[in-house]
């Protein structure tokens, strides 16, 4: 086979999934080609200019712990940071940041260009090269052929994208950019089940035409909490966002024009995300609400563009201008870019294994919206996993698989490959059964070792990780051993503060669990030789202690449920040779190639009877070995 260029791994699409995939693959030593339709739009945020949020912030922290890049890039380009859920427990707190959209793109491109083995190429992939049925490379629209042993498809909304504004529709991957239609045909030809989803985006306004005084400012945190464990401080100048509301007049106008909305005229067939409803949906489904909240989010330091968050719409562009002007404070506002809805293709993620590789075509990996997810963070974490596993695949190394007990990434991947999707999938903390264990602040403890073992976590990050773990261990010991005694000077004052006598002696760990006892108080009681103690370190240790009891019972429950999960299934096990498994079950097992009993257990369609037969087979095999 002749190729214009030969790579180990080709990544199609340079959005949030593709960038992570290419960066990870290249840093694992695989020669990696990252092919995108427009090199100027690498790492583009198609929708809101923000990263993080509840559970999404957790994902970014996990990406960072594994050695991914999203956390570092947003830390360098974020213009408003907030830690959400501060009033609640540490497990459900999560960082969020507004991004400077253009600077994010530039920083992402700079990061990729600084990576060895990573080669950016502009072009449009239309087909795969197959060598006797094996994946061998990709073919571009302009005729170039690139060789690759593994391909990561991260095409986002570009896969057969169709844009709607009012009754107008046109093919496109994003406003003003072409769709990727041929690749969708290729996937269908290979037999992949392809479905249709929908998403939408609001209009962008000219900031100079907004009456800012009519809105309530929303400030960022005094001390920003960064996404990356490696970030010491946020350098970007910080801005404010603004909160406003729609009115009954706006709602009435929308209701009167629903026939113009492709959502309600039946033109859009794809299913949209419920947690990101269009303003049309909000007005129809919650007709009793007299107003809906809006956020005005400045898009960056170098532009006047403002993102009208909460006003996603596919109504005709000219109507959007009129609707916007009915909003108090936006009477003079001018729409720079209208909002729109977009339908796109996705491939049933049940085609994938836990390494995000398709069973149908070995070497082919899917990441991001092609798997039916929504969100930059969801895309990025899949990109990271797919990029890592694509490189490992070409290097004949064991794949990286993450368990749902240890990470939100594991939760997301397992949900996708086991349950499939019928609407765009977004991460929530409630999707994680073990959410008390999956905190944003302990993502390093949970995952950094994997990143290091793979070779994605460099020496300085690894040193930082180890010294933090050492500090935490020391602090943990101090909280257990340092006691507040009746003879201590602060004893009476602390008793008075919590309105209850503390007894003759209490460890700081126990004291911290009492109501009204704050981290600041515990900090003040720590012995001087330990200080200075970083607030984040103390918070992590206190969170461990707060949840320890709950986690122990939960761990016992997990152990009981999954006691056989670690049993290994030897590679190339002939499932057909196991007496008592039906043809359908054998096919499922052959397709998924589970490596442990736990993976087999999570496969869809495996009956309790089939699992016990498999378990008996594995037990018998183990005994034969021992």
């Amino acid at each position: 086979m002749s190729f214009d260029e030969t790579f180990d791994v080709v990544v199609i699409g340079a959005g949030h999934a593709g960038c992570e995939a290419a960066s990870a693959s290249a840093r694992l030593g695989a020669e990696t080609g990252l092919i995108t339709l427009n090199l100027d739009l690498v790492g583009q945020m198609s929708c809101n200019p923000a990263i993080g949020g509840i559970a999404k912030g957790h994902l970014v922290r996990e990406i960072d712990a594994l050695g991914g890049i999203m956390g570092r890039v947003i830390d360098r380009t974020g213009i408003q940071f907030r830690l959400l859920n501060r009033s609640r427990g540490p497990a459900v707190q999560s960082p969020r940041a507004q991004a400077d959209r253009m600077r994010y793109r530039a920083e992402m491109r700079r990061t990729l260009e600084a990576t060895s083995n990573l080669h950016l190429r502009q072009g449009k992939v239309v087909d795969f090269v197959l060598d006797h049925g094996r994946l061998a490379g990709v073919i571009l629209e302009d005729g170039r052929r690139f060789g690759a042993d593994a391909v990561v498809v991260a095409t986002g909304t570009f896969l057969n994208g169709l844009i709607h504004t009012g009754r107008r529709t046109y093919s496109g991957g994003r406003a003003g950019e072409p769709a990727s239609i041929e690749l969708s045909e290729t996937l269908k030809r290979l037999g992949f089940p392809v479905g249709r989803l929908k998403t939408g985006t609001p209009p962008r306004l000219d900031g100079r035409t907004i009456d800012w005084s009519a809105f309530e400012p929303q400030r960022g945190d005094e001390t920003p909490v960064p996404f990356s464990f490696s970030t010491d401080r946020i350098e970007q100048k910080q801005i404010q966002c603004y909160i406003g509301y729609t009115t009954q007049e706006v709602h009435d106008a929308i209701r009167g024009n629903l026939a113009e909305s492709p959502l309600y005229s039946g033109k859009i067939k794809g299913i949209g995300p419920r947690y990101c409803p269009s303003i049309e949906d909000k007005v129809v489904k919650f007709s009793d609400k007299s107003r809906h909240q809006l956020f005005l989010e400045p898009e960056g330091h170098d532009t006047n563009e403002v993102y009208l968050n909460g006003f996603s719409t596919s109504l005709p562009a000219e109507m959007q201008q009129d609707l916007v002007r009915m909003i108090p404070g936006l009477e003079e506002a001018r729409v720079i870019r209208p909002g729109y809805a977009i339908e796109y293709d996705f491939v049933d993620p049940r085609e994938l294994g836990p390494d995000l590789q398709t069973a149908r075509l070995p070497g082919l990996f899917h990441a991001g919206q092609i798997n039916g997810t929504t969100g930059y963070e969801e895309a990025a974490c899949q990109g990271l996993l797919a990029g890592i596993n694509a490189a490992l695949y070409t290097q004949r190394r064991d794949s990286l698989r993450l368990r749902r007990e240890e990470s939100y990434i594991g939760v997301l991947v397992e949900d996708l490959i086991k349950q499939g999707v019928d609407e765009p999938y977004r991460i929530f903390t409630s999707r994680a059964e073990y959410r008390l264990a999956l905190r944003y602040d302990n993502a390093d403890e949970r995952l950094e070792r994997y990143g290091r073992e793979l070779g994605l976590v460099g020496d300085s990050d690894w040193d930082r990780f180890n010294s933090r773990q050492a500090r935490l261990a020391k602090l943990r010991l101090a909280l257990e051993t340092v006691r507040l005694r009746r003879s201590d000077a602060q004893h009476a004052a602390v008793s008075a503060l919590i309105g209850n006598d503390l007894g003759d002696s209490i460890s700081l760990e126990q004291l911290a669990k009492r109501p009204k006892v704050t981290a600041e108080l515990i900090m003040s009681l720590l012995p001087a030789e330990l200080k200075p103690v970083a607030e984040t370190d103390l918070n992590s240790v206190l969170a461990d202690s707060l949840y320890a009891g709950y986690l122990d019972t939960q761990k016992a429950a997990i152990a009981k449920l999954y006691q056989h999960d670690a049993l290994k299934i030897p590679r190339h096990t002939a499932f057909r040779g196991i007496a008592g498994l039906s043809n359908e079950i054998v096919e499922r097992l052959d397709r998924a190639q589970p490596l442990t009993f736990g993976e087999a257990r999570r496969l869809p369609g495996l009956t309790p009877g089939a699992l016990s037969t498999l378990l008996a087979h594995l037990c018998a095999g183990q005994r034969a070995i021992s």
Partner: protein
Amino acid sequence: MTTIVALSTPRGRGALAVIRLSGPDAIAIARHMSGVTDVEPRRATLTTLRRPKDESELDHVLLTCFNAPHSLTGEDVVEISCHGSPAIVRSIIDTTLELGAVLAGPGEFTLRALSNGKINLAQAEAIRDLIAAQTEAAVKQASRQLHGELSNALGPFKEKLLEVIVLLESALEFVEEEIPAPRANEIDHALAVVSDGVGSLARSYSAGRLLQEGVRVAVTGRPNVGKSSLFNSLVERERAIVTDIPGTTRDTLTEAIDLEGIPVILTDTAGLRETTDDIETLGIERTRRAMSDADLVLLVLDGSTGVGPGDRELLDQTENAHRLVIMNKSDLPGFKLPASCVEELRPITVSARTGDGLATLRAAILASVNGNGSDEGGLLITNARHYDLLCNTQREIEAAREALRERHTEELVLVPLHNALKFLGQITGETTTEDILSKIFATFCIGK
């Protein structure tokens, strides 16, 4: 690893029943109940089982121990061969539960055998069929219940619990939305309703068991008050010998009758009095045992002679028992029922001879059994697994209320609430995360 227990022979009456225990505490539990300290493995030992809590005798049984790994499951296993009465089986299993065993889930013995490598590959297919069959039966049972009374009764509580979960989850997940903050007192109130309802259903278990396994009713009283006549009237034939001679009934007599579909095991007893007659003394001994075993005592008084000192003594003795006081012989001219007596004892007036008042008595027996039932339209829990699940549900909900009172944050309050939902789901069908999310999006307008 827990120690599990289950009846291994079919439910219902039979000559023998075999109860099986498996797990690390199996042998210790057997020792505790039998008092036999050195049980020789794999050898049947005749012994008496007792309930350690009150030293009450349960049954004479054959006990066989199998030490790990030489047993069915590969763990320590104890097999108890007892007499095949549901009441005996019930009390033995209850006692093992008191000593730390838990009820085995469907197929759990087989699964333990599998995981300990006690079963070879050739047997895999047979086991698969077995487990599949059990699952199928479980599915059938679940679907019956899904359309049945219990699910209907639990439906509103599950719905309320789900509403609370939705409120708290929404507050956590969508901090930037305009979602009203959950009010602790409203949530506590909703949880109290769920806890009371589930608890009330759980409490109906004792009555429910009676309905399934038979209500034991003992007819007692002084000699010659007409116990045997009443017994005959209730069983609707001349089963007991009736004479005017006090002390005619020497032994207890038992007959099963059907009261509107509820099995009642009716026992006629010897009249209670001081006596020197050896045979009568033995009979009286049996009477006392029948009384203590009974779920309901019918204390018969003679309305034509008034309440005498012997009656008083019996009234005092049965004061704390579940009892009905019956004033017999209403057909006799000397029958008197002073107002003070009505006030104090609320007796049921009958004439065993004419049959007068028997309908009222039957209704009263039924009512006193059903009276133990729940407030949920007379629904009773009859299945030990359901009882367990309801108790666990209630415990988790109370834990959540406690967490609320201590002002724990939502994610901590939600831990026991999700557990409660899982326990309820074992009866009514699972609630998935998707179900919860769907309800959130149906309740609140969410999304920027």
